[in-house]
Structures are given as structure tokens and as C-alpha cells.
């Protein structure tokens, strides 16, 4: 009996540990919304305002990479109500049936305000396998941020011609050891493809042809990309995923492959337009600019999707409606530096005198941040038409030559997006090939004789060490003992302990 009770107690002790871990499950489902987003990717004040407005508590968490998020969703499909992956991951999740379709009639204003360009692009992305085969990605996601990839460069050392193509900077020996590319296989692979098939890409007439080339994953293309990346590796400062924007602002490097949001941030910091923590502005350190090479580049879309395990639909739609309001969109753009997929809709803002006025995203962001028509003389500058994004109407802005790079980091021109392709999700077989290629690019490869030599030397050393430690067990290993003892060599008289008593 005693034994039974104590075992029961011990079990209770351990099980109480588990209930501690599992206690999140028991919370009431209707009032909590679990959202998982990239780091630094939302104005978190909005979350508190959402709770004040609706009474729904947001349990907000962040993830590092799309693949980490995927692993979490595989292990526990019911871990989140809303997640924000990129389009290729949304494609993979939809193919495997891990997310559900959304009902846009429950999200007031979203479809009207979404940019027509984005809608068209998302509509053209089809799920290739699984139960949702043939559906477009548009049906699964509420658009959040989008952007491109290109060179951020230091205008003092790098000319705009050199960054108008992907391999231009590698031809200039003065830029040796001053360039970084992405330590992310998808991003570097598409850069490699653009270098390998540069001529074909420049002759391509439309986006479909470019998309076909930038999605090639046959063995030959993969090997060619591997060779190309290996050939530029000696000229690289390094591979990075988040240190590049600091390195270019500090002047350690002169050009780096950047995502457009990071590009906008780096340019602003270097130009002294970002507030420090104490509210002061740092001075203008150096002039950076952004360029999307002529061969073409990657275009990406991040959106809110609902995992198949989520049942909390009411809260999900309330949140999606809230986050898609033009005012929230503007605040998120202001906070993150990325560009929202939503371009339409009006909201009220306050001017310096505290007076309310109606405005929209185009006048606040594009005209407010970039327009330089007042400073420029007649005939100077570049006139950029953004009506492809904002819809029909007069959506033009005049910027200087220098301001153009900063503008396209936020809103690329229609001509640029035409040469930017979405990169599909790799199948698992393709991933194996690309894995081999990437390993060869990132790692060193010694010739076989050197490998064998090193392994032999290491094994030999270890064997010697083991023998030395166990020398007592192997009598044949014993080193010959010194013939003369210390006392004999010094000529001292030796008295044995047994003899001491006799003296």
C-alpha cells in the first residue's frame, strides 16, 4: 500500500509537470487569437488596439525562417490561428493541405483595396498537387507585404552600370572582397540562374518567359549555377542573411544582394534619415542606392494564411479585417519599411496643427516620402507612373536620379516588375540536387588523397594516445627504465626504510 501511494505521488509529481506545459490548451478558444509572424514585421501597438476594439486577446509570436514555421506546423497543425509565410511556402502548405481557403466576403474592404497588380499575380499562381490542385494562391491568403531582390550599392565605388546586371560587379577587380550574397539557397540560386542565363533573359519578351527561365531546376541548370557561384566565391566578402545591411552602412562592403525592405532601411540609415533610439538623427554617412538588374529578379509576397487546424474563424476574420484597413496598412509600412500589397482606400490622419484630414496611401507614402517635383527644375528628374499598382487614375511621382533607387526599393516601376519572377516551391527531389550543389558552393572540397592522408594521421594520433594511456596493460610497450637511479647518479647513500629502525 505504502509503495502504491508513493508511486502514485511520484506519478502525480511528473504529470503535474506535463499539465504545466499543456496548460495553454485549456484557454478559451474564442477569445484568444494565436498569430505567428516574422520578427519586426508589424507595428505591435496595433495588436493592443485590436484587443481594445474587439476584446480578442492576440497571442503574438515570431518565427525565424519559413522552413522553421513549416516544421512547427507539421509537428502541431493546431499551433496557430494565423501565420505569415512567403508565397512559395504558402504553395507548399496548400499542396499538403495544411492551410484552409479564406472567405473574402467576411473581410470588409480587403478586395477593393488590394492592388490590381498583386491580385493578378497571386491569381496566376496555381497549386500544383494535392486536394487543392488548380486553386490559385489568392484564395488562401490575405496579402501583407511584398518586395523584390536586387543590389544595394555604395554610389562612391560602384557605378550604376555595374549593378545593372547581376555579374557586372564581379568584373571590377576593385570590388574584390567587397561584395556579399545571400546565405539562403533560394535567393542565391535565382541570382546564379540570372547570371547563367543572362543573355536569354535579356532577350525574353514577357514575364512568362522570364518566369520559366528563373524557375529552371533541371540537373544541368543546377550544375551550371553551382559552377557560377563557385567562380564568384573567391571575390566575395562573405555570405550573409542579416549582417549585410550593417556592413554596407559601416563601409565594410560596397555592394550586397538585398531584399527590398532591407534595402530601403539601409539606404535611409546611411543617408541619416532614421531616428536613433534617443530621437536624434545620425548624420549622412554615405550614399547608397538600390538597383534591380536588367536580367530580372525575384519578386516575393508574404500573406496571412489560416492553418487547417484553426477553428477560431470569427476572431481570424475580425483580425484580417482590422489589419487590412488602410490606416493599419500605413502604420505597418511606416514601422517596418516594407511595402504593403494594399494600395487603395482612404483613412483620416492628423496634420501638424492637429487637424484631421482624409488621405490615402499614395499621397502619404509615395508623394509624402518621395516626391521631389518642387525641388527639381523643369525637365529634370524621372517621372514614375505607379498606376499599375494603385489602379486607374493619376498615380505619377517625380523623383531625382538619386531618389529613384530609393523609390524602387519601395515601389518598383511597371517595367521592373515585368522582369521579376515568382520562384516556385522546390520539390523534394529537386531539393536534394540543390542541396548537393549548395554544399559544394558553401564548403571546401579536398582531393581524395588529402582526405585519406588527414584521416590516417588523425587515426594514428588517436591510437598512439590510447596506447599511451593504457601503457600498463601492454608490457611490450614499456619504455626501458633508466639504469641508474637518482641517488646512484648523485652518489648518495641509499637507506631502505626497513633498515631505519636498525640505525
Amino acid at each position, binding site marked *: 500500500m505504502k*509503495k502504491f501511494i508513493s508511486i502514485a505521488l511520484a506519478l502525480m509529481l511528473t504529470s503535474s509537470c506535463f499539465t504545466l506545459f499543456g496548460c495553454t490548451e485549456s484557454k478559451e478558444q474564442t477569445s484568444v487569437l494565436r498569430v505567428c509572424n516574422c520578427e519586426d514585421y508589424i507595428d505591435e501597438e496595433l495588436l493592443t488596439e485590436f484587443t481594445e476594439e474587439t476584446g480578442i486577446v492576440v497571442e503574438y509570436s515570431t518565427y525565424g525562417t519559413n522552413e522553421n514555421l513549416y516544421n512547427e506546423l507539421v509537428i502541431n497543425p493546431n499551433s496557430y490561428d494565423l501565420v505569415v509565410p512567403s508565397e512559395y511556402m504558402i504553395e507548399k502548405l496548400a499542396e499538403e493541405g495544411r492551410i484552409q481557403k479564406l472567405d473574402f466576403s467576411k473581410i470588409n474592404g480587403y478586395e477593393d483595396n488590394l492592388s490590381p497588380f498583386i491580385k493578378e499575380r497571386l491569381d496566376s499562381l496555381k497549386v500544383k498537387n494535392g486536394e487543392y490542385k488548380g486553386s490559385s494562391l489568392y484564395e488562401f491568403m490575405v496579402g501583407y507585404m511584398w518586395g523584390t531582390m536586387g543590389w544595394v550599392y555604395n554610389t562612391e565605388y560602384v557605378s550604376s552600370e555595374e549593378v545593372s546586371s547581376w555579374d557586372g560587379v564581379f568584373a571590377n577587380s576593385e570590388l574584390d572582397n567587397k561584395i556579399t550574397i545571400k546565405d539562403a539557397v533560394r535567393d542565391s540560386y535565382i541570382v546564379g540562374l540570372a547570371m547563367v542565363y543572362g543573355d536569354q533573359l535579356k532577350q525574353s519578351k514577357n514575364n512568362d518567359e522570364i518566369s520559366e527561365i528563373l524557375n529552371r531546376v533541371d540537373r544541368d541548370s543546377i550544375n551550371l549555377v553551382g559552377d557560377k557561384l563557385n567562380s564568384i566565391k573567391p571575390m566575395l*566578402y562573405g555570405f550573409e542573411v542579416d549582417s549585410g545591411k550593417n556592413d554596407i552602412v559601416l563601409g565594410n562592403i560596397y555592394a550586397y544582394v538585398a531584399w527590398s525592405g532591407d534595402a530601403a532601411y539601409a539606404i535611409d540609415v546611411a543617408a541619416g534619415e532614421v531616428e536613433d533610439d534617443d530621437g536624434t538623427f545620425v548624420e549622412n554617412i554615405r550614399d547608397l542606392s538600390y538597383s534591380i538588374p536588367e536580367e530580372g529578379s525575384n519578386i516575393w509576397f508574404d500573406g496571412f494564411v489560416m492553418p487547417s487546424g484553426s477553428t477560431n474563424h470569427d476572431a481570424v476574420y475580425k483580425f484580417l479585417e482590422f489589419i487590412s484597413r488602410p490606416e493599419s496598412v500605413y502604420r505597418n509600412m511606416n514601422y517596418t519599411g516594407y511595402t504593403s500589397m494594399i494600395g487603395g482606400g482612404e483613412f483620416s490622419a492628423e496634420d501638424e496643427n492637429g487637424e484631421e484630414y482624409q488621405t490615402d496611401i499614395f499621397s502619404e507614402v509615395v508623394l509624402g516620402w518621395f516626391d521631389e517635383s518642387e525641388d527639381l527644375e523643369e525637365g529634370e528628374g524621372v517621372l514614375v507612373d505607379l498606376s499599375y499598382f494603385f489602379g486607374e487614375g493619376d498615380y505619377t511621382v517625380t523623383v531625382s536620379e538619386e531618389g529613384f533607387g530609393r523609390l524602387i526599393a519601395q515601389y518598383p516601376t511597371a517595367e521592373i516588375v515585368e522582369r521579376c519572377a515568382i520562384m516556385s516551391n522546390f520539390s523534394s527531389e529537386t531539393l536534394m540536387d540543390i542541396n548537393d550543389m549548395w554544399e559544394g558552393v558553401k564548403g571546401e572540397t579536398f582531393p581524395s588523397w588529402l582526405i585519406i592522408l588527414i584521416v590516417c594521421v588523425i587515426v594514428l594520433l588517436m591510437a598512439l594516445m590510447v596506447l599511451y594511456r593504457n601503457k600498463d596493460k601492454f608490457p611490450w610497450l614499456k619504455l626501458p627504465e633508466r639504469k641508474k637511479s637518482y641517488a646512484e647518479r648523485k652518489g648518495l647513500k641509499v637507506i631502505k626504510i626497513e633498515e631505519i629502525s636498525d640505525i
Partner: protein
Amino acid sequence: MTEKFINEEKKTRKFSFAFSRKQLCIPYGLFLALFVVLPLLLIVFYAFTDKDGGFSLANFVRFFTSSTTITTVIISVLIGLATTLICIVIAYPVAYILARSNLNRGGTLLMLFIMPMWINFVLRAMAMKDLLTLIGVFGFNNYVNVIIGMVYDYLPFMILPIYTVLIKMDKSLIEASKDLGASSFKTFTKVTFPLSMSGIASGITMVFMPTMTCYVISDTFGNGLITIIGKLIDEQFTTFQNWNLGSAMAMVLLVIMLVSMWVTGGFKSDDVRGTNI
């Protein structure tokens, strides 16, 4: 009367709760099973299966036939060896001085050496990189940079065990050696150093093994141009979604670790592993 009392006592004790050692071990046993044994079994399972869950040796074949993977392992081992050697060379004199001299009254000096360990090591690594760039020693060779970073980060793990052994050493042995006419140098080579071997051995296990997988440092200090085995494993689990190959790599690494522990005598029970401060 007394007999009756004893019988009563026995009766009441029957119903009082007293945990035996075995019973107290149950929670820990469960913990070990759940968080140590089970994950290990999972690694073994994944390593010997393919994507569909069938038995397969393909992961190991892929590992041992790719000269890039083998080269990466060799580079990791070499970086680990270099780091460990440099750590011993730097740490031994430091530990010796700390243990012997009056400088370290009340452990203040030791505290200064240990204090960096209280700060997040990613932060330390990045700060160190910026500092090295600033004074200009950074950037001439990526391997040297990585080894500098590793030594900087793992030095306390070498100092501590050696220090602990030296401070606990029986001083009368040294006195005896000197009484018998041995010089200070001879005392060191014949008495102090052999007796501190166990500290060096546990220092080696604590430095060599983590350096092979600590890819945060190799990425930060090598600008992403140096790949070590830990990075390869991470990429299998994240970027390439190939848990099977990743597990196979982890298993090979595990075997390397076991062998290196056996070689350095890490399994010997008389080791001083007291590194807690």
C-alpha cells in the same frame, strides 16, 4: 509495554509516507527517458530510414561518398583541434597563476575571467568581431578569424577545470617534492602537471566537442565562408527539409564525439569535472 509500543510504532509507520530513493528517482527517470533517450532513438530512427519511413542506408552512403561532406567534417575536426590546443596553451598558465598567486584573493580575478560567460555568446561574438575589425587584426584569413572567435568563446571552459584541479591539489605533495631536492621546474613537470591532467582532459571534452558544431561563431567570424558540420546539420533540418540525412549526420557526429571522449579519457570516473562556480 515497550514491545507493544514498538508494534504500534510499526503499524503507524506502515501508513506514513516515506519515499525510498528508488521512488524519488521516478521523475528523473521519466525526464531522462523523455528528453534524452527518446530524442536519441528518434535520431537513430530517422538516420536509418528514408522519406517514406522504410529502412535505408542511403543517408550514410550519401554522407560518406560526398567528398564535400567529409571535407567539412575534417575542417570541423581541425578547427576543433586547433582551438583546443590554443585554449590549453593560454588557459594553463592563467589557471596556474590564478590558483597559486595572491592576486586571486577571494576569487576576484577568477570572477573577471568568468564574467563574460554571463553575457549572451552571440552578442559577445558580434562585439568581438567589431572590436577586431576596429583594431585591424580581422579579415586576413577566415580560418584564423574563426579560430580566434572560438578560442575567445571557449577559453573559460578550459580555464575552469584546470583551475579547479590545481586549487584542490594537495599542497603537501609539492612541499614533499621540494623537500626531496627537486627544483621548481622539476616539481612542475613531475608532480603538478601529471596531477592536473584530469583537468586538462575534461577541458578538452568541454572545448573540442562544442567547437565542432558551434556554427554561430563560424558564420559570424568567417562571414559565412567557412562551413562546419553543425551548419550542415542545421541546413538539413531547416532549408532542405531532409530530416533523415540530418539525423545521419548527427549520428556520425555523435560517434566522433564518443571516440574523442574515449581517447581523452573522458569516461574515467576519477575525473574532476567540477566546473561550477
